[in-house]
């Protein structure tokens, strides 16, 4: 049934596209991981901005994942706070190494997410948004009233810097106190984002990603063909909260302190906003959104008088809502690049080309 020649041609085009795609990805990773640190090694402010934007993107990737199952998640701030406090408590109360506290924070946040998710994920639309918003507040209040365990309003003020990490005698990460701290945190942020993005991207283009998207479109239809929608909803939410926890853990270490006001309702809203701005249809959406918006705000606060800042933020938000409702990435970009970045489009495109 398939045209042999078209088959071969399509395969060849796909191979060249694949090669180009991997080249682009490799270049960007090299730029991000190696070149930028070298170029900006002494521009500490720039490193800090990029590192912060990276981890904000990571946290937003989690929110993107819940968008992909059709839920508006405004609770990520709460899970970031859980991650931050977990790291802080593990390190200050029990002297645990940061490199154990980091994954532990993610896992604990994920467990909370799974427990809560089992209850709240049956809600949709505004109701889910409202309850996750309340969640952010509830988490903040919980840590505020945690007594000496969480340190109340001032929180936990002195968190040690991450120590060295060595496996089988090989030193993977140096002691943060002995090297350029900003550079070290930048590297950590970059690695976290690259790994985090890699996982979400792979999920998105795999069968699980298709299941998530089918949940977004029509949950009843998915159930009727045999998909356990509860399992997949909770999975998506759990992964989302894991990312929140990891992000929170990073900030606790980078700022060497954690207190209830670190992540609040406005942060939760921003995480969702980054996804919207970048474009919900694309896995890179939250990354683009976070970088653009965060850097924009930094430039604004540096160059615009204090009294005009709020006005400027609002004006930018409104402009985006009016002219870019589908996000930045919905603008015409080179098709070959966008085609490979777009979640799940690859399988469809390739298959369509071979059967036409």
């Amino acid at each position: 049934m398939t045209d042999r020649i078209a088959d071969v041609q399509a395969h060849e085009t796909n191979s060249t596209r694949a090669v180009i795609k991997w080249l682009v990805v490799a270049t960007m990773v090299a730029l991000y991981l190696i070149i930028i640190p070298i170029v900006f090694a002494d521009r500490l402010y720039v490193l800090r901005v990029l590192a912060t934007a990276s981890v904000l993107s990571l946290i937003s990737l989690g929110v993107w994942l819940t968008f992909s199952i059709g839920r508006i998640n405004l609770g990520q701030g709460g899970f970031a706070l859980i991650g931050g406090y977990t790291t802080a408590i593990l390190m200050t109360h029990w002297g645990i190494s940061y490199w154990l506290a980091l994954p532990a924070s993610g896992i604990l946040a994920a467990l909370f997410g799974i427990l809560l998710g089992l209850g709240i994920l049956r809600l949709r639309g505004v109701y889910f948004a409202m309850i996750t918003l309340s969640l952010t507040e509830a988490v903040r209040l919980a840590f505020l009233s945690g007594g000496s365990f969480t340190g109340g309003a001032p929180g936990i003020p002195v968190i040690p810097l991450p120590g060295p990490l060595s496996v089988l005698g090989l030193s993977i990460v140096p002691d943060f106190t002995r090297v350029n701290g900003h550079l070290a945190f930048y590297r950590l942020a970059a690695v976290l984002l690259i790994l985090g993005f890699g996982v979400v991207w792979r999920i998105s283009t795999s069968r699980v990603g298709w299941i998530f998207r089918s949940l977004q479109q029509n949950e009843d239809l998915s159930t009727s063909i045999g998909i356990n929608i509860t399992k997949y909803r909770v999975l998506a939410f759990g992964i989302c909260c894991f990312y929140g926890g990891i992000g929170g853990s990073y900030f606790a270490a980078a700022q060497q302190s954690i207190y209830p006001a670190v992540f609040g309702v406005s942060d939760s809203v921003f995480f969702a906003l980054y996804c919207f701005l970048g474009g919900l249809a694309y896995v890179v959406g939250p990354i683009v959104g976070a970088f653009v918006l965060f850097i924009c705000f930094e430039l604004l606060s540096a160059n615009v008088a204090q009294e005009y800042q709020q006005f400027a933020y609002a004006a930018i938000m409104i402009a985006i809502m009016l002219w870019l409702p589908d996000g930045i990435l919905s603008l015409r970009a080179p098709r070959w690049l966008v085609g490979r970045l777009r979640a799940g489009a690859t399988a469809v495109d390739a298959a369509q080309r071979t059967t036409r």
Partner: protein
Amino acid sequence: MALLEVRDLTKRFGGLVAVDRVSFDVEEGSIFSVIGPNGAGKSTMFKLITSFLFPTSGRVTFAGEKITYLPAHVIARKGVVRTFQETAIFKEMTVLDNVVVAHHLRSRATTLGFFFGTRQARSDEASFRENAAEILDNLGLGHVSYERARNLPHGYLRGLGISIAMAAKPRLLLLDEPFAGMTFEETWQTVERVRAVRDRGVTVLLVEHDMQTVMRISDRIMVLNFGKKIAEGAPAEIQRNEAVVEAYLGREDEQLGI
């Protein structure tokens, strides 16, 4: 042993009895229709069988196995698949891709396998594609395979819904008002589709309003009124049944002059 056995199925919503001790059997390979006036409990019955609602009491047995109170997706995997009024999974994708995706979603093969083995994934994709094309051809939708799902007229959309359900390899296909809102020609096409499904060995249970079409297509018909079964039998019997006529048209009342 019938493929589907329903015994004393009851559903109460507070004081309202939507379905009242209904029992019936559906033989394998037949087309069984459930009809009745508005509010008779047909939709509720439909949801009870497919576990989108749980019964207050009663028992549903499928292929000898009790399926009452099992979650909807579990009985879907056992072969009890339903359709909906709104159908396509991905409106932006083509008709063919919709059915292919339905295969993917349903496939139990390891997600990890998809993660690594590209050759396996590609051969999976090829066989899904072939199967999807066959289903669509069988249901008379082959010629719109490359049309975007959202561009389809109503009749074809319902046909797509049936195709997606067929991708789930049902033994019993439940159709929710398959002829609703259809033109004369679309109705005829849908009748052909339902027959094609039956000819592939799938048993069909449908809930419907359109009496004429139901009489034409069914092997057995059951009539509900106010949640109770008032008649069951072959189309010819049902047409002659007084209780059925009364349910739809009302009784003659000389005093009121009706």
